[in-house]
């Protein structure tokens, strides 16, 4: 049986790792102890990759939702014969001394997946299967009964337990733990999968305590969401995006992950399958904007702190991406034993793009800092010196060809967007008064702009082009207005919008570039790139074309799954999410477009 559609998955997490839960109640992706650790459940990438399934026996129809303003997932199964079963899934969060929620002061496992079943009507027989496959399914484990403490995984270096309020037994032939229970209306059962990496296992109690911990977790998320100051339009969808962003916001470092998954393909059967469990400098300006726009100042400060800390390791140059803790070695390799999502091979771990030269990231980082300062943030002298060092790197590097924002694996080119972001970097550093030789930097800015206008603009097309000497469109050029390189209503920007949408739009939604023409060094094509369509909506809002912006934005809202989650891309024909899922870049682009629409309306 093939893996469910990508849009059939929901995300739960505890801000240290995250799991994908299918509409049918199967947890098909979980990495422990951290987001970018090897998986223990990877059925989404290979049906024998490990899973934790809870579902009714026989045919059923499922509907689901997140409890309001939380990341607690509730799936309701409607079973043949009138039975109705509710499954509540969450990764409990340790109670925080928030002043509103009483801390528990009791031990919690390092990670826990808590699943509570409640029969709402009729009688429902429930089947449970736990098939752990640690280390990307390269290891098999056994099971040992530990009395009333439940079942412990054996043959592994970590501690993992499954406790369940039902009979479970190993099925050695299938290397899993299975059980079933018949529930009548009003009856409930809980299951807890607890993980501890290198200390004695902590086993939380079930029964009423399970329900209470779900309530506490929901309460924590509602407390967090309640801190949002956003009062603009599309509030419900914007807060859902904020909740996704928080799930990808690593509590122990402040970094924001691009996505919690690896190798969910950009096209079914294609080889454009990348590991996104890292932090891209490219995403930083939009991430910070999202936190600031929604009033999450603490998260914004922590994120900027991580960004400036991480980039010190490669200072005065920047790397395209860093891991959660700022590490720079992200070597890429494939996992040939995994068949890939619906046969989409290879499955990659690590990301070779980390060693590429991408000049746009200098502008992204400085634009992020500029937003922070504009919001009242302050930079210490070390940070100021570090940023001044970036100016020297930009002045030295901007004339070089690079791989561009899309990390092409073809020979480097002079990408127009990269040059423009070099201009943004120097321009913003001058405005922030962080460069010692301001006159020289301003002359360099003038030189970059002259270079772009001479080589990156095609008078015949009336548009900026993807790279010097070419006549290709690139959706990243829509961001030139956002970053202040060109006013939205400037004829060159208007022409660029027209050219980009003419060349890249499919049924009104955008690709990032034409893979068949761009020779990006990877075989196959891809679908529509979700963030680019939000950039188009934001551009339209910023140049006063409100009706068009709103229409496009509302169409894009329809491209999320039923829970409001977006992948990296959108399937051209069905408009379903595809690619790594859910994708922070898409969600922050959505928030940015929504805030632009709100500002535009206010104006």
């Amino acid at each position, binding site marked *: 049986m093939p893996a469910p559609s990508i849009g059939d998955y929901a995300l739960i997490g505890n801000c240290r790792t995250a799991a994908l839960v299918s509409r049918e109640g199967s947890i098909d992706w979980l990495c422990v102890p951290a987001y970018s650790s090897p998986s223990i459940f990877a059925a989404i990438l290979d049906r024998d990759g490990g899973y934790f399934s809870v579902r009714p026996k026989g045919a059923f129809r499922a509907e689901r939702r997140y409890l309001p303003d939380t990341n607690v997932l509730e799936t309701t199964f409607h079973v043949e014969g009138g039975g109705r079963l509710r499954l509540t899934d969450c990764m409990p969060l340790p109670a925080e001394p928030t002043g509103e929620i009483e801390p528990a002061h009791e031990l919690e496992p390092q990670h826990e997946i808590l699943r509570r079943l409640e029969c709402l009507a009729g009688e429902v027989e429930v089947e449970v299967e736990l098939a752990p496959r640690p280390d990307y399914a390269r290891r098999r484990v056994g099971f040992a009964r530990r009395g009333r403490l439940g079942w412990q995984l054996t043959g592994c270096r970590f501690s993992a337990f499954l406790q369940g309020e039902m009979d479970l037994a190993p099925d050695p032939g299938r290397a899993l733990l299975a059980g079933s229970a018949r529930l009548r209306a009003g009856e409930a059962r809980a299951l807890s999968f607890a993980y501890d990496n290198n200390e*004695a296992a*902590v086993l939380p109690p079930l029964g009423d305590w399970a329900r209470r911990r779900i309530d506490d977790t929901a309460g924590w998320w509602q407390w967090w969401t309640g801190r949002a100051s956003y009062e603009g339009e599309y509030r419900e969808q914007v807060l859902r995006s904020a909740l996704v962003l928080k799930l990808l916001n690593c509590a122990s470092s402040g970094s924001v992950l691009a996505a919690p998954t690896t190798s969910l393909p950009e096209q079914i059967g294609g080889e454009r399958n990348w590991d996104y469990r890292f932090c891209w400098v490219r995403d930083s300006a939009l991430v910070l904007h999202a936190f600031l726009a929604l009033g999450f100042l603490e998260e914004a400060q922590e994120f900027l702190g991580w960004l400036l800390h991480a980039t010190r390791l490669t200072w005065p140059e920047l790397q395209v991406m860093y891991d959660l803790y700022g590490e720079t070695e992200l070597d890429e390799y494939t996992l040939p034993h995994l068949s890939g999502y619906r046969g989409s091979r290879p499955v990659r771990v690590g990301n070779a793009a980390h060693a590429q030269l991408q000049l746009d990231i200098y502008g992204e980082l400085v634009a992020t800092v500029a937003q922070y300062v504009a919001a009242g943030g302050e930079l210490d002298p070390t940070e100021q010196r570090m940023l001044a060092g970036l100016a020297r790197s930009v002045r030295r590097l901007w004339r070089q060809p690079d791989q561009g924002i899309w990390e092409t694996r073809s020979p480097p080119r002079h990408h127009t967007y990269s040059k423009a972001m070099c201009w943004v970097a120097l321009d913003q550093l001058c405005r922030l008064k962080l460069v010692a030789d301001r006159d020289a930097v301003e002359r360099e800015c003038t030189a970059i702009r002259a270079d772009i206008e001479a080589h990156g603009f095609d008078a015949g097309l009336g548009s900026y082009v993807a790279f010097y000497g070419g006549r290709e469109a690139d959706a990243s050029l829509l961001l030139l207005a956002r970053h202040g390189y060109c006013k939205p209503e400037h004829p060159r920007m208007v022409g660029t919008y027209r050219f980009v949408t003419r060349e890249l739009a499919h049924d009104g939604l955008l690709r990032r570039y034409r893979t068949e023409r761009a020779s990006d060094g990877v075989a196959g094509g891809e679908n529509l790139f979700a963030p680019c369509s939000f950039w188009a909506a934001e551009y339209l809002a910023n140049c006063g074309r409100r009706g068009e912006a709103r229409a496009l934005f509302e169409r894009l809202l329809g491209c999320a799954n039923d829970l409001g989650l977006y992948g990296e891309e959108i399937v051209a024909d069905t408009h379903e999410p595809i690619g790594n899922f859910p994708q922070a870049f898409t969600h922050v682009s959505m928030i940015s477009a929504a805030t632009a629409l709100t500002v535009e309306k206010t104006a």
Partner: protein
Amino acid sequence: MTEISVEILHVLLWGLIATAAMSGIQFGAQYLGYSRLSLPFLIGTMFTGERAAANVAGVVFYLLGGWLFAFIYYFIFASLEHGGWLLGMLIGLAHAVILLVAFLPLLPYMHPRMASEYEGPSYRRRLQPPGFLALNYGYRTPLATLVAQAIYGAILGATLLR
């Protein structure tokens, strides 16, 4: 400074060094995935359910325990009028055996946060018990404990009785 004071400082210094070496081996075994036994964590959780506070308190108590046992080793060497790394190592191994077969299996009856396989976890009792030879914390745990305690004893044996 009197001779006794010098001797006490000497025991304290080498007790600290031996405890650090023993801890290093145990932490190393933990982080290499050979064992999940952390005595500081088990000791600390007797006093608090907050993981960070438990680890800090546990390290303090563990260090105090390391000093206390350094004095006990000293008195053993003094009563035997003999020291040396080999004798120290043998005492350390005996110490490890007592820990593994007596102290740790009895811990669930003394530890307020340790669960029992007969009763299951409760609101407060959530820690998995170590079991026979602390094998519940990884099958290499006895080996790691024996090596750590042997090194502790060997250092004290080699240094305490001059």
